[in-house]
């Protein structure tokens, strides 16, 4: 090969490296700017067991007094139960011969003390059964579509849905001879748009009998009761009070999308006893950058007093951070790709 070719190739290589370097430095990815708040660490979670569950399609389906259950997105009738003391796993198959029409991508399993639920908001279907039997007992086809489903008890559920204005709205369903659906449009407060800016995670807190909604894109959570009356709105540590999103309407398909990557404030949440656990991507001013880079930070909030309690770390596993988590008893389960890790909580 001629010398000129080498020089041209080197120039080409140099050019691409230069362009990438400009992109990288101008994007601001390299600087993870610390926010003006402080964290206090109490490492309460000690890893105790790594378990290979073979597939990465599991999600946290629910927690009961003695177990944590995993549902599977690609096998909707398959559940893994994890005993929160012995950490024994149990593979469960929901036994049924007849099922109403369900869509694979909108069907979710939920488990709450004594009962399991198969919900499909796109097909307006809720199926309820007992956890010991793992057989559907009741099937309800309700009048409204919904996106989020959170059982309160076997006949009463909280839902997140789209309103007539195609905005997020919270509500409840009481099933029976005639299902009663209630909505409350004053709970979610929109910023910019009514879909993305109000997007969040809905949980029921059995220990308090309240519901909680944690926004994805701003530093706020909403506590409300099962009658859909507001209890309180609370701020989290993060300083992003206004959702940092840019929306865009696609003319070709009449849908809205995000134009730029949103700034995620509350990545992952779960409720444990009277606490709210938030997996937060924000760096505090008193935090070690290296530890922060190699682990997820969980902020713990006391929901009874609505105050920040402390934070702890969950380290990376196989160089990636956990996707979702749930806790019951003294056990926290975090899902990493096709593994779960059980942590022993000491408080």
């Amino acid at each position, binding site marked *: *090969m001629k010398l000129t*070719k080498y020089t*041209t*190739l080197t120039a*080409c*290589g140099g*050019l*691409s*490296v230069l*362009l*990438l370097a400009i*992109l*990288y430095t*101008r*994007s*601001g*990815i390299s600087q993870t700017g610390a926010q003006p708040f402080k964290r206090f660490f109490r490492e309460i979670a000690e890893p105790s067991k790594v378990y290979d569950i073979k597939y990465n399609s599991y999600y946290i389906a629910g927690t009961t007094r003695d177990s944590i259950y995993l549902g599977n997105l690609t096998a909707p009738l398959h559940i893994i139960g994890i005993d929160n003391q012995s950490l024994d796993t149990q593979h469960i198959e929901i036994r049924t011969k007849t099922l109403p029409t369900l869509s694979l991508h909108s069907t979710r399993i939920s488990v709450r003390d004594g009962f399991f639920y198969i919900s499909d908001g796109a097909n307006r279907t809720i199926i309820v059964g007992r956890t010991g039997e793992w057989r559907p007992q009741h099937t309800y086809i309700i009048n409204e579509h919904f996106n989020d489903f959170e059982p309160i008890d076997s006949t009463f559920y909280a839902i997140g849905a789209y309103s007539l204005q195609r905005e997020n709205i919270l509500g409840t369903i009481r099933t029976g001879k005639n299902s009663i659906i209630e909505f409350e449009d004053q709970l979610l407060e929109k910023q910019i748009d009514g879909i993305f800016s109000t997007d969040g995670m809905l949980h029921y807190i059995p220990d308090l009998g309240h519901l909680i909604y944690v926004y994805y894109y701003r530093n706020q959570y909403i506590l409300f009761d099962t009658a859909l009356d507001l209890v309180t709105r609370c701020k989290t540590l993060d300083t992003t009070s206004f959702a940092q999103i*840019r929306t*865009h309407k*696609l*003319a*070709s398909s009449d849908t809205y*999308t*995000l*134009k*730029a*990557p949103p700034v995620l404030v509350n990545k992952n949440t779960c409720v444990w006893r009277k606490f709210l656990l938030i997996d937060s*991507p924000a760096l505090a001013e008193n935090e070690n950058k290296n530890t922060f880079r190699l682990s997820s930070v969980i902020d713990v909030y006391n929901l009874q007093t609505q105050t920040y309690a402390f934070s702890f770390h969950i380290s990376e596993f196989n160089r990636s*951070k956990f996707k979702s988590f749930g806790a019951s008893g003294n056990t926290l389960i975090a899902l990493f790709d096709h593994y779960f890790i059980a942590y022993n909580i000491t408080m």
Partner: protein
Amino acid sequence: MKLLYMNIDSGSMQAKIKNMIVEAICFCLILLFMYAATSKLLDLERFAVQIGQSRLLTEYSGVLAWAVPLVEVAVSIMLAISRLRLAGLYASFTIMLLFTGYIALILTSDDRVPCSCGGVLEMLGWQEHLIFNVFFVLLSFTAIALHTKSEYTQSIKGAIRIPNK
């Protein structure tokens, strides 16, 4: 004399093979670029939104949505014209290197945004995509190394000239 003939013959054969390899690689690259460009141009708006999801590109998504497929088409045309082939190969080497570097940056950062290469290429995971791209960088490199200015015609001329001496 016979020996000389054979040498010349094998020399021209080698040049022929080299040329065939270069042409085959150019063909692959044209196929790749044209495929990627068409699938982007067919739904330009979607492509603009997709690259907007990447924190590296979000500021330039409007311009890049046009620029990337246009550059891909331009490079394909250059590769198809033998006079511009070497320049086209340098260009494909550079842009494949850019795409590869971009993927590497995405892999090191935390947010795995969806790939926006278009069509079936989006089915590749980021890791596989990286390997795929490195392969094409190596292909363009090989083609540049093997490329000689219209080697085929030169070697034929040489083969004719020498026995005349």
